């Protein structure tokens, strides 16, 4: 084929047609990414609300199965359970909205946009399951709960778990006091269990060698690990205080709650 026959004019028309097709492809990608970002915001917000709802649980009021205190689970009251149910539905809807975008190559393409939301959701899941079943879900179990259509990276799982330790710390301290039937104030079972759990997790996480890659950040991990150290310190200190001073409290002394005449 001679050269002259293959020469086409670079003119407005050719360039416009070429770049228009580029534009469509880019638009499709940007739209998908925007959908993922929106879903991510919704999931994060709902997950945070679930966590707040769980923090409102009062250990001493919640029904507990007492046959084996180590396996004791909390039963949520109907108000909290209802709130959480509604929020879970919002999360499921948000995930469904981007299910197609997150398939195939999309799973990794938009991973960065959904990563935060997944971590927040994992935090809510782990927190709830621990309170209800005294069990920390594994990565596989979490992936199963989230659904196999959505990728849960090991990075998101670990960072989510680290965030959960913070919530557990808060819960332990809020629910530190337990009053026995005879009126003795002592450290609650849940606080002791959480304390032990946090200590175990601390050891485990300290042993991990994490490097940065294109989809994980070692600085984030180090930051959260330090938060874990602080959480463990807080819980240990609180449990220690109550253990040491519990016997010094006057008989019948109840912490807080003045309008409750319960003994």
């Amino acid at each position, binding site marked *: 084929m001679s050269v002259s026959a293959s020469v086409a004019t*670079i003119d407005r028309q050719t360039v416009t047609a070429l770049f228009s097709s580029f534009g469509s492809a*880019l638009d499709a990608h940007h739209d998908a990414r925007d959908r993922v970002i929106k879903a991510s915001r919704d999931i994060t917000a709902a997950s945070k609300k679930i966590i707040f709802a769980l923090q409102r649980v009062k250990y001493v009021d919640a029904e507990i199965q007492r046959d084996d205190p180590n396996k004791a689970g909390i039963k949520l009251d109907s108000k909290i359970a209802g709130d959480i149910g509604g929020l879970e539905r919002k999360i499921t809807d948000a995930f469904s909205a981007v299910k197609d975008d997150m398939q195939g190559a999309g799973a990794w393409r938009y991973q960065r946009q959904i990563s935060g939301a997944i971590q927040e959701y994992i935090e809510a899941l782990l927190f709830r399951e621990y309170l209800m079943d005294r069990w920390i879900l594994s990565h596989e179990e979490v992936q199963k709960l989230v659904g196999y259509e959505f990728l849960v990276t090991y990075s998101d799982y670990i960072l989510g778990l680290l965030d959960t330790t913070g919530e557990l710390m808060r819960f332990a301290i809020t629910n530190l006091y337990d009053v026995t039937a005879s009126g003795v104030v002592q450290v609650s079972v849940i606080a002791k269990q959480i304390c032990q759990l946090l200590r175990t997790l601390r050891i485990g996480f300290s042993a991990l060698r994490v490097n940065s890659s*294109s989809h994980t950040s070692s600085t984030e991990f180090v930051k959260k690990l330090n938060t874990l150290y602080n959480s463990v310190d807080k819980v240990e200190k609180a449990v220690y205080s109550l253990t040491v001073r519990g016997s010094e409290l006057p008989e019948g002394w109840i912490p807080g709650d003045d309008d409750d005449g319960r003994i």
Partner: protein
Amino acid sequence: MDLEIFNKCQDSIDRDSEIREVTYTLLFSLSVIMTHVPQNILPTFAPRTTKSFQFQKEAIQKLASLASQHPFYKYNALWSRTLQNAAFAVLFRDWLVNEGNAYIAYHSGSSNPEERDEPTETSKENDDVRSKVGQLTSLERVCETLGVKPGLEDENTFHLTLEEYLQATISLINELSRLALNSVIMTENSNYSTPTRINHFIKQLQAGFLILNLKNDALRSRVDSIKYDVKKVEEVIYDLSLRGLIRK
């Protein structure tokens, strides 16, 4: 918790980095060759670069076979810039070859096919946008030259993405603005026709880029920088026409 996950990921990341380093070194030497070629030997330029492109193709093959073991976008960011530069090298080489022909045509006033160096065969599917002011090799042709499958955006097979191609095109524009400047100073016989062609070429591409709807990302800021290249070349044209060195 399975700690093995970390070890496995660490290994693949290290391997990626190795391949990336090899490719990068190759590309660097390639780019050095390309930016200092005077106009008058452009026609014989193409064969000289064939060997380098062969090396490049082999390195990319290794990268592709490694990357294919993972979902495409998982590690894409690691090699994206390097692959983009490789694409740019192809675009620039093709542009220079076409320019060589255009230069000869302009100065000899002849359109005799035998005097030209046919860069590659053209076929209808390849859709290069080529003309007497410049050639923008198509995405498909670039993929062919690099030995990469022109895959669909949403597949997990190793491919050159549209964004990488567009970034490479912008790199071409950046380099051409430099060439416009240099072609005036670097040749013994003054070359004032190349800047004119570059001027038209860059402006057409700029118009094309303005059609895209861009988000505030890296591509957007690079597209915005095209105007500085346009300005640079316009100034060259202005200087030359002011001194009567080119006819408008």
